[in-house]
């Protein structure tokens, strides 16, 4: 979903109605990204709300309206990181979401999904962010690095670490299933 450049220009010039149309179109996408990374209802909503407010506040600084989506992504990721730190600092408990098994998909057994959930939940916010940008938004490591504002090498390193952790989780579950089947 690409934001309408004319709406961005109008909002940049202070048109609140134009901004309202923009965020109504974009809020679902922002919320999904936030939920995937933070794994928590309250935190996800707070991060998106904060991102939308920061976006409105700083919009006049955006020179090129065609860069709005990338710019907003970065604001959202900063808000997500801030929210995660804030929750840690004040000791608020995060309610880790449980996955619901899909009707039909290629992920396989429920045990695989639980294992992915468990490992993904243990990754840091920084690692989860790169995973979501790469596997959900389809960004390359270079694009993810630009979006987050980190060196490309760091993004590649985080992606490699996180992917290997998830791969190990799936393979461990496969071994367990295989052993269980062999003994049955």
């Amino acid at each position: 979903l690409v934001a309408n450049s004319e709406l961005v220009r109008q909002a940049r010039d202070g048109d609140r109605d134009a901004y309202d149309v923009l965020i109504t179109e974009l809020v679902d996408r922002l919320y999904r990204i936030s939920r995937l990374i933070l794994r928590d209802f309250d935190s996800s909503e707070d991060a998106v709300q904060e991102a939308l407010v920061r976006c409105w506040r700083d919009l006049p600084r955006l020179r090129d309206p065609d860069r709005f989506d990338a710019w907003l992504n970065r604001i959202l990721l900063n808000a997500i990181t801030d929210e995660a730190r804030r929750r840690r600092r004040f000791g608020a408990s995060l309610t880790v979401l449980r996955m619901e098994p899909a009707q039909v998909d290629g992920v396989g057994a429920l045990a695989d999904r639980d294992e992915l959930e468990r490992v993904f939940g243990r990754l840091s916010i920084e690692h989860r962010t790169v995973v979501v940008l790469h596997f959900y938004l389809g960004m390359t490591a270079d694009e993810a690095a630009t979006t987050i504002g980190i060196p490309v090498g760091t993004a590649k390193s985080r992606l490699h670490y996180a992917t290997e952790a998830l791969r190990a989780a799936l393979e461990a579950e496969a071994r367990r299933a295989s052993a269980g089947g062999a003994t049955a």
Partner: protein
Amino acid sequence: MSTRSDLDRSITEWLVSELPDRAPERLLEASRAAIRTTPQRRAWWPAGRVPNMNSNIVRIAAAVAAVAVAGFIGIQLLGAPDPGDQPVPPPSVSPSAEPSAKIVLPTGLQVAGTGWDATAGGLNGRDGSRYDFACPNEPWPPSYSWQPAWWPVWGTDVYTTYSSVCWAAAHGGYIAEGSGAIVTIELRPGLATYESSFRNGVASHSTDNSLRSFVVVSAIALGQD
């Protein structure tokens, strides 16, 4: 052994499989309310860099700022019109010149939000659920008595969930200026109308048709370092 493409597909499918369809309506509602009271920054403000104090841009910016401040003071002296629904640039609740007080929470207490800008907008509990918020002892904005439209509070006794919990507690008399507290609120159903009032030095706004509400139940004094 899974191949790289198998693994990539599995991770992507797993992520997509648990996505929510839509953001909750209350998220947009709370965001709109916050945006209504948020002014935009001027485009000429330097982003993320310390400006060269000898540059012409800084001189021009300083001149514009001086004119803006003079105009603001003039408006205040001449008497500002009732701002009604017009957004007014909010002063900082925590002036940067003042170091933030370090909050000391009672052992084991977990709070749903901290700070004077925290709202109940993100709470998912049922009506009747209670939550604690930490309101640190911070200086109130010096211009509070001049700008009734600034206050981020909607309602009287029963407040919209996008109201600041701490300011609602101050409005209800649970927190005095210069004090901090742990405030307990209780979620309530939304109302068709919310009344405005001026209580305990805090002005609240009227509004209508909020999805959810809260009431302040109690407050206990907050320890500070």
